[in-house]
Every structure is written in structure tokens, then in C-alpha cells.
């Protein structure tokens, strides 16, 4: 057999046929990466996750293309680790939460988390990674869709995001036998909610109202109406949220429309109202959590805001700012603790979830962050703490605690005037998002 000179092989000009084969192989590769979307549920089998070197034709169940061609796709054969099979906690918890959503002491430590660790022996890695529901959802969505662990065991999401995640199958169902304190202490208002009937996947963490915050020294007058946000007097010093739902729903309410029943035409009208104001530079910017700093610093005179943030601001950063539910209505939202599919330490997550329903811990949380608590008995506990503070001579803190005890649970007046988010289909969500993007991006 004659020895073929390898160099000659390489130097041979590529024939047309070879080029065609190369092109075809590339096309197959591209197509293979895309053959997806048979089922929405990320239930990878053992052969899932086609590697990019083989033109995959077997129906890969991974729903999004991000799973498709990734050569590093590591499909974890997750059967949801049923908590009852593993009754003992692992000793480690990765907890993702929003900023300003847990009590911190002066040295920057988290006293309640330390208490949790002391009681249960589970060490907590606390990450304030969530700034925006959609942003964080976008961050974890590729992993969840591919069935990969996200790196988090416990997350806190607002109700409408929870609804979406349930619909997409991204959450682990809860084992309520591990949540006795929740069963004992949860308030009725927060049980069996519209977004998660029966609390199968989530239990509430904190709740609040989206309304308006303003600084009377900068506005010069009291504010009661959402339309004051559009007042040319405050041009360049008004703020709206980059969160589409809060902004659009409040605007819809200001036009007399309940968000749950809003039609597309009504949403377009709301968008026009916002767009007209945005085009004449009424709004300084659209904000996520960072509206807090702008408002406290005085860059904003009036803005959409979350109730608990303003309670905190009044205590710590700027005593002038006030929060008000617009006359036309505010949005009541509930942030919930959920466990993502593929969480590494689900038992520890359950332990933490149950921990927050103990009255003492819930009180510590409420006293610091000022949002509504889903735990009954907190308001009374706060009043007791106020009394203790007064006995010890700390009059200021006692007065603040008394105010907090009033805001630990929404008042009847407030409950009359707040609304919940609409359940949107993917298409509706897309339309609402596209409309809103026109407002915040030129």
C-alpha cells in the first residue's frame, strides 16, 4: 500500500463536493441546535443535551435553544428530589433575595440569619442578587429551562413572576409537612392566592403596596393623585419604574381601568399617556431599586415607590419623604419564597421558609424593613417591643415601633383601594412589554 504523503492531502484543493459537504454539515449543526421546543417542561432524559459535534436528530426535549448547541450542557437527570425521601438538611443554604429586604445591624451582619444558623446549624449564603423580577428571571431562566441547577436554593419573587414560573414548570412543589409554623401562623389574607392556589409552590415572604412617594419640601404641596406624577411643575424630577407591570397598572388605574380586566386598547391608551409625558422629558429616568437613592438624595421630587422602602427611608435616610396610595388605587403585591427546580438543598430551604413564620423572627424582619407581614401576631409583638423600649427610656425607638405596628398589616382603607396584577398570557405579556419599552427607550 503506497504511503500517502499527508502534506499532499492537505494541499489538495477543496473540491466543490467537499465544500458542499462542509456547508451541509454546518447547516445540520445549526438546525440541530434548534430542533427543540417539543415540550415546555425541562425534563431532560439521560440522553438529553445534544453535544454540538453530532448533528442531533433525536428529539431533544430541552425547550430553548440555549440548551441546544452548548457543548458544555450538563443535563442533570433531575427527578425532583422529593423532600420526604431526604428528611435531614444538608447544612448549607443559598438564599437569593432583594436588597433592603432583611434586617442588618450596624456592623453589616444579619442577626436573624445568624439566629437561624445557631438554631438549625444551617449556614446561609445570603445573596442580594435580585433587583428586578424580569432581570433575575432572565438570569435563571436558561438554567431552569435546561434543567440545570441555578445555584440557588431559595428565591424571593413577586406574585406574577411566581405565576409565570409555575406555568413554565420551574418550581419545586413544597412539602407542607415541613412547614408547621406556616400552617399555624399565616394570615388568612395571604393564603390560597390567585397566583398559586393552595400554596403548592410558594409561601409569602413580605407584602407591600406600590404607590407614590414624594418629598413635600421639593414638591411644595401634598400629593394624593397619580396624575401629579405628570404635572409639568415636576418635569425632570419625576420617576417611574422600569418594572412594566407596576407602571402600566398604576396608569391604568389612574384612567379608571382595573388591571385584571384591561383590554389591549386600554393598555395602549395608558401607554400613550406615559409616552406623551416621557417625550416631553417629564421623567428623570426609569428606575429599579435605585429610585431609593435618587429620592433620598433629592434628585427626585415624586416617584412611583414601594411602601416599605419609604418606611425605611423615613427611619434612616430622609425623614421628609412620604408615601401615599393614589386616590385611584395602588397595587398590592406579595413577594414569595420559592424553591427552584434542581435546588441542591431543598430541606434547608424549607427550614428557612418555616423560620420566617415564627412570630419573633417575623417581628424582627418587620421592625427593620417595614413591609406587610403575612404572619399573624406581629403587630401585637411590635407593640410589646415598643412598650419595652419605652420602659428602657428609648422614647424615639418606641414611637417608631408604634408607627410600624400600624403598618405591619394593610389597613382596611388601604385594602379597599388596592388591586392585584393581571394574569397575562405569553402573547399579552409580549405586547405589554413592547408597548412599555417604547416608553422607557427612545
Amino acid at each position, binding site marked *: 500500500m503506497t504511503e500517502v504523503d*499527508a*502534506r499532499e492531502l*492537505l494541499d489538495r484543493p477543496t473540491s466543490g463536493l467537499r465544500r458542499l459537504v462542509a456547508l451541509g454539515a*454546518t447547516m445540520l*449543526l*445549526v*438546525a440541530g*441546535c*434548534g*430542533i*427543540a*421546543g*417539543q*415540550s*415546555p417542561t425541562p425534563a431532560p432524559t439521560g440522553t438529553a443535551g445534544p453535544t*454540538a459535534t453530532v448533528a442531533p436528530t433525536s428529539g431533544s426535549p430541552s*425547550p*430553548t*435553544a*440555549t440548551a*441546544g*448547541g*452548548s*457543548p458544555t450542557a450538563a443535563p442533570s437527570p433531575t427527578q425532583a428530589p422529593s423532600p420526604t425521601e431526604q428528611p435531614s438538611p444538608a447544612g448549607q443554604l443559598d438564599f437569593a433575595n432583594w436588597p433592603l429586604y432583611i434586617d442588618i445591624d450596624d456592623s453589616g451582619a444579619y442577626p436573624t440569619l445568624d439566629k437561624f444558623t445557631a438554631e438549625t446549624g444551617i449556614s446561609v449564603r445570603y445573596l442580594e442578587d435580585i433587583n*428586578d423580577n*424580569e*432581570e433575575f*428571571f*432572565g*438570569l435563571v*431562566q436558561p438554567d431552569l*429551562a435546561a434543567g440545570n441547577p441555578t445555584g440557588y436554593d431559595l428565591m424571593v419573587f413577586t406574585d406574577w413572576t411566581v405565576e409565570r414560573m409555575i*406555568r*413554565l414548570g420551574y418550581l419545586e412543589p413544597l412539602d407542607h409537612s415541613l412547614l408547621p409554623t406556616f400552617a399555624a401562623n399565616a394570615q388568612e389574607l395571604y393564603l390560597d392566592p390567585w397566583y398559586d392556589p393552595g400554596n403548592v409552590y410558594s409561601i409569602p415572604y413580605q407584602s407591600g403596596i406600590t404607590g407614590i412617594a414624594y418629598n413635600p419640601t421639593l414638591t411644595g404641596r401634598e400629593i394624593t393623585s397619580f396624575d401629579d406624577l405628570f404635572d409639568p411643575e415636576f418635569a*425632570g424630577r419625576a420617576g417611574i419604574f422600569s418594572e*412594566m407591570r407596576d407602571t402600566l397598572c398604576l396608569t391604568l388605574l389612574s384612567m379608571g381601568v382595573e388591571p385584571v380586566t384591561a383590554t389591549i386598547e386600554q393598555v395602549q391608551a395608558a401607554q400613550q399617556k406615559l409616552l406623551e409625558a*416621557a417625550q416631553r*422629558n417629564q*421623567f*428623570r*429616568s*426609569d428606575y429599579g431599586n435605585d429610585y431609593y437613592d435618587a429620592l433620598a*438624595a*433629592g*434628585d427626585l421630587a415624586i416617584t412611583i415607590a414601594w411602601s416599605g422602602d419609604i418606611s425605611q427611608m423615613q427611619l434612616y435616610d430622609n425623614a421628609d419623604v412620604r408615601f401615599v396610595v393614589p386616590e385611584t388605587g395602588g397595587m398590592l403585591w406579595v413577594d414569595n419564597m420559592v424553591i427552584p427546580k434542581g435546588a441542591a438543598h431543598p430541606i434547608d430551604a424549607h427550614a428557612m421558609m418555616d423560620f420566617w413564620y415564627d412570630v419573633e423572627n417575623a417581628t424582627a424582619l418587620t421592625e427593620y424593613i417595614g413591609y406587610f407581614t403575612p404572619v399573624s401576631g406581629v403587630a401585637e409583638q411590635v407593640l410589646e417591643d415598643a412598650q419595652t423600649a419605652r420602659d428602657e427610656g428609648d422614647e424615639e425607638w418606641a414611637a417608631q415601633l408604634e408607627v410600624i405596628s400600624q403598618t405591619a398589616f394593610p389597613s382596611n382603607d388601604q385594602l379597599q383601594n388596592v388591586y392585584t396584577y393581571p394574569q397575562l398570557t*405569553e*402573547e399579552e405579556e*409580549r405586547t405589554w*412589554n*413592547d408597548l412599555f*419599552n417604547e*416608553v*422607557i*427607550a*427612545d
Partner: protein
Amino acid sequence: MPRRLRWLTPYLFLLPGGLWLTAFFVLPMLVMASISLQEGSLSSGYRLTWNFPIYAEVITEWTTQFVRSIWYAAAVTVLTLLIGYPMAYTIAFRGGRFKNILLLLVILPFFTAFIIRTLSWKLILSDNGFVLGTLKDVGILEPAFRVLATPVAVIGGLTYNFLPFMVLPLYVALEKIDRHLIEAGSDLYASRRQTFLRVTLPLSMPGVFAGSLLVFIPAIGDFINADLLGSRETTMIGNIIQRLFVQTNAYPEAAALSFVLMAAVLVLVALYARFVGAEELTRG
């Protein structure tokens, strides 16, 4: 190594780099190309439908932001050149003993993260902060004056963030210039200005070229400066892509937009290379 296999050597040398490029560039590009041609949604899944019209849709919808990004990036390149060239020249020709320290000072900002530096600019430029606030108190500026949320702030932030990318290549190019050539220029009766324009500047063009590329290409896709320092009127194409991907979850559009941006940058860079004469640059 046996003689027969010697020809393999260059390919073996290329192998690590090639593998890295393939795994982290070529394959992701192919996946993104595939995504851009798909249609669907998160819940119903995505299907490859070879949806080529999406490219036209995406270009027509976001033309303003594209053009704006190109303008901003061009402005940033020119500004960094104007600021960076004197800096690099001074360090190279007049640095003397302090060259290393000066270079360290240029790189020092990189010890902090990009976002933190941009956030610090937000503080510095805030309406009533220690810069503007003081000027307003003194009366030089009127109370309603603001820098944040204007194109000026965005371009300023971008210039600040990318200045070292311009200074360093310029410094390298200027450092390499044979001083005797400059002497020769004055020997031949050229004034200082003429020497600079006809000897130093042309010899430093490789540095200008490299620096411009290093500034223009990242600047055009940047979204952090526009996000933190800008307003809705300064939205750049990077912001659009980020919003489409992360918030709207419109993956096909975001992928298509990324490719259009890449293509636009390639075209612009090719034109620039033709203009500056890249062949001459590579000739030592």
C-alpha cells in the same frame, strides 16, 4: 518528532488557541445564529423556522439606536484620541524616570470594577453633589442645570472608561519610534511642528489604529454607561439587546440584533482599516 510529522507542528501550536476560539466563539456564534432564526416563546418552545425576515424587522425598528450608538462610539474614539495622544506622548518622550509610575497611574482605575467606576461618576455628576452643587451655590450654574441623564454624561463616562485602552497602544507605538529619526528630521531643517506632523505622527499610526479599535468596538456595544448615566433619549443598542434578552425574553430578536451589530462593526472597521492603510501598519 519524526520528520514525517513535522508539518503538524504549526497546527499543534494553533491547537490550544483554535480550540478556545472554537469553543467560546465559533460555537456560541452558531448557536446564536440558530436562535435568531427561531420563532416561539418560553412556554410553547422555540422552533427553527429559518425566519430571515427578522433581520430586516430588527434593523428597521432599532435604526435610531444603531445610528446613535455609532455616533457616540465615534465621538468617544475621537475624544479619547484627543485626550490620550498628548498623555501618551508626554509619558513616552518626557517621562524619563517616572515612565513606569505614570503608566501605573493610567492603569490604576482598572483595579476597580467597571460598574463601580461608572457609579462613582454618577455620584460625581449628581445634580447637587460636590461638583455641581458647589458650582450652583457659588452661582456659576443655574439651579436647574444637570449633566446626568444627558448624552454628555454618557459620552463622558464612556471616554473615561476607555481612555486607558487608547493611551496604552499609543504609548507603545510612540515608545518604539527611533529617536534618531526625529533628530534626522531636525537635521533636515524641519521645525518642531513639522517634525511632529511628518515624522512622529505617521510613525505612531499603528498605535492610533489599535487604540481606535480597542475603544470603538467595546464602546458601541456598551450599555452600562447609558443605563447609569443616561436617560431614555440616550438609549444605545447595547441597552436594547440587554432589555430584549433579559426582560422581554425575546431571544430571537436579541440574537438577530447582536449579529447586525457585529456586521455593522465589521464593515466600519474594514472601512477604517482601508482608510488608515492596514497593510503598511503590519510592516514593522
